[in-house]
């Protein structure tokens, strides 16, 4: 036992040390910069927290609300889209679900840029859909890009695997006997869903929803490539403040707002999950 303890700590050192240096330290640095006066590039100034005042008074809350709202919409839509498929993969489709898994995982390895660029080519005026429609029917339209729904559509598209796999994992944890017993006792299909399947699959539902929400809230490429300048999301504001604005303290303060929201939700979710039992079961 004593050996186990030493080896565990020893083996954790490379990754733990690396993350302390290249993940925690940069976040602390951002936190420190967020307290600096405007437009400075070093920490050798007296903190005045004016960046947070700017964040509160200059209407940046709109970006936060847009980001969270679109993330919420994408999460809800993804849950509805993925539930039947996750159910099929966990309980019905057998070997075919392996094919589905490989096909879905494959898309994760294609740069998000290229996939979203593909949607631009598909949805733009003179793109795949509008171009062929006009060619065949003579009736064109203005293209489907540069609005809020298409950003949510992009989020749904990009983060589908992050909802699908945890849901399938969760549904696989619902014992068939329990469902059968509920049916035998006279439950309707709807009651089985509400009283048996949803509660028992809850760990998977939680993980999937948290992942999609957190990733969508910090997403930037969807709104830039598909949404044009329809709305500015919070991650975009952070980037602008750092790059064009050359105002590191403001960017850092905006980043801290995003980190607080996303990190708070993530830590809450991760804190509830029992990783040993979730992963060992696979």
């Amino acid at each position, binding site marked *: 036992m004593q050996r186990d303890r030493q080896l565990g700590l020893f083996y954790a050192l490379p990754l733990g040390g690396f993350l302390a240096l290249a993940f925690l330290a940069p976040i602390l640095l951002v936190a420190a910069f967020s307290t600096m006066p405007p437009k400075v590039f070093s920490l050798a100034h007296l903190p005045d927290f004016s960046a947070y005042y700017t964040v509160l008074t200059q209407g940046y809350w709109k970006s936060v609300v847009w980001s969270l709202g679109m993330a919420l919409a994408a999460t809800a839509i993804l849950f509805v889209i993925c539930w039947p498929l996750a159910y099929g993969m966990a309980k019905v489709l057998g070997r075919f679900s392996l094919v589905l898994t490989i096909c879905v995982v494959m898309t994760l*390895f294609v740069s998000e840029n290229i996939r979203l*660029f593909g949607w631009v080519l598909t949805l733009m005026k003179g793109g795949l859909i509008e171009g062929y429609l006009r060619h065949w029917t003579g009736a064109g339209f203005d293209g489907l890009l540069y609005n809020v729904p298409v950003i949510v559509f992009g989020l749904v598209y990009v983060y589908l695997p992050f909802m699908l796999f945890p849901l399938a994992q969760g549904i696989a944890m619902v014992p068939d006997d329990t469902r059968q017993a509920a049916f035998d006792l006279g439950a309707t299909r709807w009651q089985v869903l509400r009283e048996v399947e949803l509660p028992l699959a809850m760990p998977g539902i939680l993980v999937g929803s948290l992942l999609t929400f957190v990733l969508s809230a910090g997403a930037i490429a969807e709104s830039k490539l598909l949404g044009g300048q329809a709305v500015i999301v919070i991650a975009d504001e952070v980037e602008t403040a750092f790059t064009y604005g050359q105002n590191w303290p403001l960017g850092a303060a905006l980043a801290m707002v995003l980190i607080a929201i996303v990190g708070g939700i993530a830590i809450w979710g991760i804190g509830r999950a029992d990783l040993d039992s979730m992963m060992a079961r696979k």
Partner: protein
Amino acid sequence: MRTSRFTATVLMLYGLLVIAFLYLPLFSVGLASISKARYLSFPIRRYAYGWYGEALASDTVQTLLVLSLKVAGIVTVLSMIIGFFGALAFARYSWRFRKAYQKLILLPIFFPQTVLGLALLMWFNTLGIVPSWKTAVVAHLVWIAPIATLVISIRAYSFDPALEEAARDMGASTWDTLREVTIPLLMPGVVSAGLFAFLLSWGNFPLSLFTTGADSTLPEWLYAKMVSGYSPLVPTVGILTVGSSVVLVALGLLVPWGLRRMRALAGRVPSEQAAQQIPQET
């Protein structure tokens, strides 16, 4: 409980529909890459493969290719090593701070990558490090090493601790046990983790954007071209990068399958049992 054939068919069709949805944008990119026109517009009137020759012959593309391969290659090797030890600490040994360590590892995966890239840029700047492809390797590792650790952990959970103890009882040193028992047992997980690491680094854009300095990776170049107006090389190079990922995944799936077949034909014991053969010398 048996689900009806009808339900199974509907779910299967639904699965195919979702796959079609996931691949539609790539289909558009593929079509665009073989359009002869310099300014793309659907329907495509004349097809040509000339852009592929031009892309492969281009010096810019070759430089980008070499750099992206270099970054992804180094990230792969380092994540396999860090992930191997990280996974042993994650899943195999019980030690004091294990729960906290497990949670720390999940955080970078949830973290918005754009913000992480910017935070690292500030961090490098503060340390006086000039960003180049080497700093991009560090940035990729912050996100990819934890993922590699999780992939190997899944394998490490199914690890029977008795095997290590047996080796030790027979007089093997810590290093012998590691080399003769632990590494062979975890090897399949390490190989999949390497595959994941390579593909994720190869396709990553948000982390590279802020951390490569004057250097540029393929996804970065593609993005720059996408936002600065259409170039016929964008879909072509995009399809080339996607194609190389597909080939790599196909190899990753087929090679282990082929090895298993060959072993089965040769009538030899599977590797798991082979690994149980404990070192002879005492």
